[in-house]
């Protein structure tokens, strides 16, 4: 049994197994079951669509955190013609929770920076489960400045539960590192594309998340804090996490509506982990399309657009104006 099957995926998984079974049976017994298989396959598509069309945010969160969900390194491998990882912040260390480097996508030089989780327990410890220390954010900034110098677009992949909350991280200025990145990224003179590929956890996500386009994968989430933390802090009850995941409006669809993200990238049926190659194809296409558009802008236009983009986030009441309207 595959332990990585999520509850709501089970019906699909079971249909898949049955189809597989029939196929094997057909082969072994040399009996034609094509029609039956086709029926089951149709059913599976339908069931899938039904399930994935009305996923609860909590379920989306599960997909975003799925242990088999493709990682930054997977996408890099799938979309780049060539890629060289570059290491280190030149100050303190090389944080493996953030991966960065230079490469070519269809011949276009790019700098790619992303949170990097592990696939094994050992690698996850090494990568700190994608939770970066200040040196991770500073490595990212170094590579972004380098990209700016060489007029290279920047692509970031967000996939972190959050910045690491630990003694060393605080000592070395986690807050300063993130703040500095927000400030500097807002004025980099090259296009920046931000993709939320899995978990978008709070300031730790935003630390590499200021860009000209913020695009979420269909089954990723992006949140001011994890629903678990929200439930604990506001309602002192972790059982409320599921409700928090709804209240916080963390899904791609929600955030597109609210105006936080620019686009949602559709995932293959069942999520990116069921077909990383197809997902990477969507991603690559999105990157190239966006770059072509952004490269038509002058540096001044680019920065001005990026500024307004963030300048205009937020919803508040302007009482003065309301009053004026009423007089």
């Amino acid at each position, binding site marked *: 049994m595959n332990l990585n099957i999520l509850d709501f995926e089970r019906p699909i998984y079971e249909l898949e197994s049955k189809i597989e079974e029939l196929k094997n049976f057909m082969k072994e017994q040399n009996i034609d079951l094509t029609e039956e298989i086709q029926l089951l396959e149709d059913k599976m598509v339908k069931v899938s669509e039904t399930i994935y069309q009305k996923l609860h945010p909590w379920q989306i969160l599960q997909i975003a955190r799925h242990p088999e969900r493709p990682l930054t390194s997977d996408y890099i491998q799938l979309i780049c013609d060539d890629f060289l990882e570059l290491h280190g912040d030149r100050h303190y260390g090389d944080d493996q929770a953030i991966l960065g480097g230079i490469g070519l996508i269809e011949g276009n030089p790019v700098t790619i920076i992303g949170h990097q989780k592990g696939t094994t327990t050992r690698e996850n410890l090494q990568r700190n489960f994608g939770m970066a220390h200040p040196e991770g954010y500073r490595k990212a900034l170094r590579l972004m400045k380098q990209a700016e110098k060489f007029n290279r677009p920047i692509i970031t992949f967000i996939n972190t539960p959050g910045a690491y909350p630990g003694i060393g991280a605080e000592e070395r200025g986690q807050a300063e590192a993130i703040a500095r990145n927000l*400030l500097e990224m807002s004025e980099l003179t090259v296009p920046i594309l931000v993709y939320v590929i899995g978990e978008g956890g709070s300031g730790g996500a935003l630390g590499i998340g200021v860009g000209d386009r913020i695009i979420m994968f269909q089954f990723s989430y992006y949140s001011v804090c994890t629903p678990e933390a929200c439930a604990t802090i506001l309602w002192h009850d972790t059982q409320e996490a599921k409700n928090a995941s709804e209240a916080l409006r963390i899904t791609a669809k929600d955030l597109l509506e609210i105006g936080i993200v620019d686009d949602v990238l559709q995932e293959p049926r069942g999520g990116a982990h069921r077909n990383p190659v197809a997902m990477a194809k969507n991603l690559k296409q999105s990157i190239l399309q966006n770059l072509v558009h952004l490269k038509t802008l002058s540096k001044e236009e680019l920065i001005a657009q990026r500024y307004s983009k963030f300048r205009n986030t937020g919803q508040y009441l302007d*009482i003065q104006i309301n009053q004026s309207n009423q007089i």
Partner: protein
Amino acid sequence: MFRELFRSKNKYVTVNRDPQYSDRSEHETEKVPEIRERVKVEKEGDHLWTKCKSCQEIIYNKKLAENQMVCPVCDYHFRISARDRINSLLDEDSFIELFSEVTSTNPLNFKGYAEQLEKNQKKTNLRDAVITGRGKLCGTPVALGVMDFGFAGGSMGSAVGEKLTSLIEYAASKRLPLVIISTAGGARMQEGMLSLMQMAKTSAALARYAKAGLLYISVLTDPTSGGVTASYAMLGDINIAEPGALIAFAGPRVIKQTISQELPEGFQTAEFLLEHGMVDRVVHRHELQDELSRILRIHRMVGEVS
């Protein structure tokens, strides 16, 4: 609801306005209630005295207020309201509030948030967790933003972000030095990602402000944490902290939970941050005005050779 709230409050007789600035209308500054009353509110009770959290001394609230909410015995810095802070720093009657019309709404229809806002507004007589405006500090015009921990734990939602961003842009357009005094639990959860994005918004405004060659002094007070620390509070040309203030990205409770061990003595205090290179100076509240004034003086004279 809001109109009522603000009608009921006391007002100054009309105060000086800045006639040049027309991009945004200004609001009359709110009357500062008598100090003793506020102390009582802050102690969440009707006691006339407060027990010092540090030395356990019993201090009369009046005396505490006269001493800028600093324990006269052990120098422990109590939290201070935004209005008291403004009074303690700026020249008398020089403060002109700006962007006071910007107030939080409930964009996500988050359960209980509207009520919480109303409760906090009534409790603090503030519209939101920051007061923004301009004034004179020992004669020097400054743009000033002061957060109030009493309002929803000083959390940053859309309104706080909008007011501060407007202030930063205002300061840039007027070429005024900027002082922001922070105290915050972090981003305001109830506004979800809209809150988080205020970090990027304020930081982007500060980037522009910095590019104009202007001076931003960030003052970090007890407590400053989360998204506020990780944006404008850490981005001062000069970062000043108050003695003993807790300054953090992740708060001590979260860290303790994560690493399951005791935190070092003095961890995340102002003094700890000084030692670790994050703040320029730790300044006693009684000396803050003088320090700011000295820094402003040094920066005002730039370019003039004697």
